[in-house]
């Protein structure tokens, strides 16, 4: 099915939609202000936080944070140590995709102006194992879920259509096997 899809590179891939760099996972106490402390560690060292996912841990006294970050790789070791130094941080570590499961979800809203376009779009969505979650005569919201590069690839194709907006959850990671994250 993929062969029927037209790909052009007329429109450059919007950079903000592609999440790169490193993935950090942190286990922190569930208190007001914790995120502020962590964000300051990154901002001071000119690191950009590309994505952040926070949710309550299994024990509600703690939260799980997953951060997608980009910046000078030489500074990453220092950042991890500075985060571990924070009293509210139980642990902070980097995860690479080889040793961890990395997933994210994106919602993409595309403008529809012809039936032909709709058919093409549905083919793309099906290829990526996505779902149409909202459909009107003039627009369509699709959901793509998976590893970040898969989401990136889907967005790269959808860019050829008229994307109204994109929302990504940001990466969540979990260490593979028995190893705790």
């Amino acid at each position: 099915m993929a062969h029927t899809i037209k790909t052009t590179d007329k429109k450059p891939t919007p950079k903000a939609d592609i999440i790169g760099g490193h993935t950090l996972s942190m286990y922190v106490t569930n208190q007001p202000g914790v995120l502020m402390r962590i964000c300051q560690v990154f901002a001071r060292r000119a690191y950009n936080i590309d994505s952040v996912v926070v949710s309550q841990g299994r024990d509600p006294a703690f939260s799980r944070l997953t951060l997608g970050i980009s910046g000078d790789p030489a500074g990453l070791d220092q950042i991890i140590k500075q985060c571990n130094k924070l009293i509210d941080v139980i642990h902070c570590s980097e995860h690479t995709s080889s040793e961890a499961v990395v997933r994210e979800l994106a919602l993409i809203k595309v403008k529809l102006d012809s039936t032909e376009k709709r058919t093409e779009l549905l083919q793309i969505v099906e290829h990526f194992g996505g779902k149409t979650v909202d459909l009107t005569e003039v627009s369509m919201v699709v959901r793509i879920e998976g590893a970040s590069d898969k989401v990136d690839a889907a967005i790269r194709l959808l860019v050829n259509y008229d994307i109204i907006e994109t929302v990504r959850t940001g990466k969540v990671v979990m260490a593979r096997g028995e190893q705790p994250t």
Partner: protein
Amino acid sequence: MDGAQALIRTLDDLGIEYVFGYSGGAALPIFDALETVDSKIKFVLARHEQGATHMADGYARATGKPAVVLVTSGPGAGNTITGIMTAQMDSIPMIVVCGQQVTWMLGLDAFQEADIFGITIPIVKHNYLVRETNAIPRIAREAYHIATTGRPGPVLIDIPKNISQSPFNGDLDAPMDLPGYHPDESYIIDPEPVEQAALLINLAKKPVILAGHGAMISGAENELMELATKMNSPVTSTLLGKGVFPEDHPLSLGMLGMHGTAYANKAMVECDLIVNIGSRFDDRIIGQADKFGAQAKIIHIDIDPSEMNKMIRPDIEVIGDAKAVLKALNSQVEERTNESWIESMDGYKKKYPLAYKKQGGLRMQQVLDEIYELTNGDAIVTTDVGQHQMWAAQFYKNSKSYKWISSGGAGTMGFGFPSAIGAQFACPDQTVIAVCGDGGFQMTLCELATAVIHKLPIKILVLNNHYLGMVRQWQELFFDNRESGVDLEGNPDFVKLAEAYGAKGINIKRPADVGKKLEEALAYNDGPVLINAECIKADNVFPMIPAGAALEDMLTEPPKYKMEKPVGST
């Protein structure tokens, strides 16, 4: 009992001796509790919140124990920032308690409301905004524990007024809850890097020990002496490490770095091994990072893992409490003589002694040299920041820990005098000398009132050159001598100023008078005495390593060529 009373009872229970502070509306319940709770705590009213923080800082640097700063919300809390930052940069334990607006007004721009919790996040070891009265004793205990263990630092507790004045129904002995903080692990030393460090030490022919503040905080003086003696290694110390190894010992090289001794810096350039014990390789001591220790192996011992590879990549990292590490290390170190190395160091000491010209007017160095002799190097010395600070570091040799009190990392002007007040409260029987510049002293001189009413016999040495001398020195050397914003025209008559506050004032104008005037000041113990020493206006501190330059580019005398503006650091 209300929350404020529970706070004072807990602080008393923790052994807090002094609270330095300034009152205000949001802190009213806590100030009232100081009166209503029967405790051993003594309260000292400063004249500015910054002064209160430096007093607590000076107290901690003279004792190793924390004091409490108590201020009100908004501007009161805001004025503590410089003092908190100073403590954080130099790893000083401190507990800062701020009053705050009532909880339901937070975020509504209420009177004297400031988000001091948010504001201070980057400059504290940890901080709290208390939202529950019954949590106060637990939080106070945690704050004390965090401030004093591991790598020490300031902890701030922001307490809204309704929280401090509500009834307390909790447990005064509620246990701490700090799942992410494990300072005890600092005493468990991994034996492997210690063995590797011992191997390197036993192979070294030209070793240098670099002793920092961490060695002092851990109380490793004896272990350091044992190591230095076994290795027969020269020892240099950082500004904050002054005294951890006696500076009058034959193996001592004094302070290293930007204005350190020539022989200490020569040692760093020529050595084949640097054993760094509790120093964070500050940019003031390493100069150009990629050239630092390029010829040497480097062992870095530090309690804080984030100091490893921060400035310098060591060959061996040993993470842990300095004393615990040295205890494990010393038994594996072999006795050495390193004769030719020691001889070459002694040669440098003869070739580049710390000296100053005796002619051409009164020099700060002479005043410091003479007060060092008159006090047998045994006084507690605090300093401001600038030329006088560097000369004091050079000429006031310290043979014991906790006697040298100077703002290193933050470089806070105005620190010298209030920190001397804290140190004098901590050590009432010792001679305390506040070495100040005329610039720094005027930033916190309102604390004269505090010193006078408590009859603190502090010797305030104002080394007065009517200039911001260090900045002027840089303008002379790097900016074609274009003076900009450094002339302190308008200085008061400091002797009359002291007298106006009820303190004693002494002027020194001639080099020949220094000894007897200092003796007069040292003999006066009925309260503070201010000695205004009218020093020559334009003098420069040498040796000097221009900021960001390599240690081998050290200047031991004024350069004969035009110098490039430093770009590697400020």
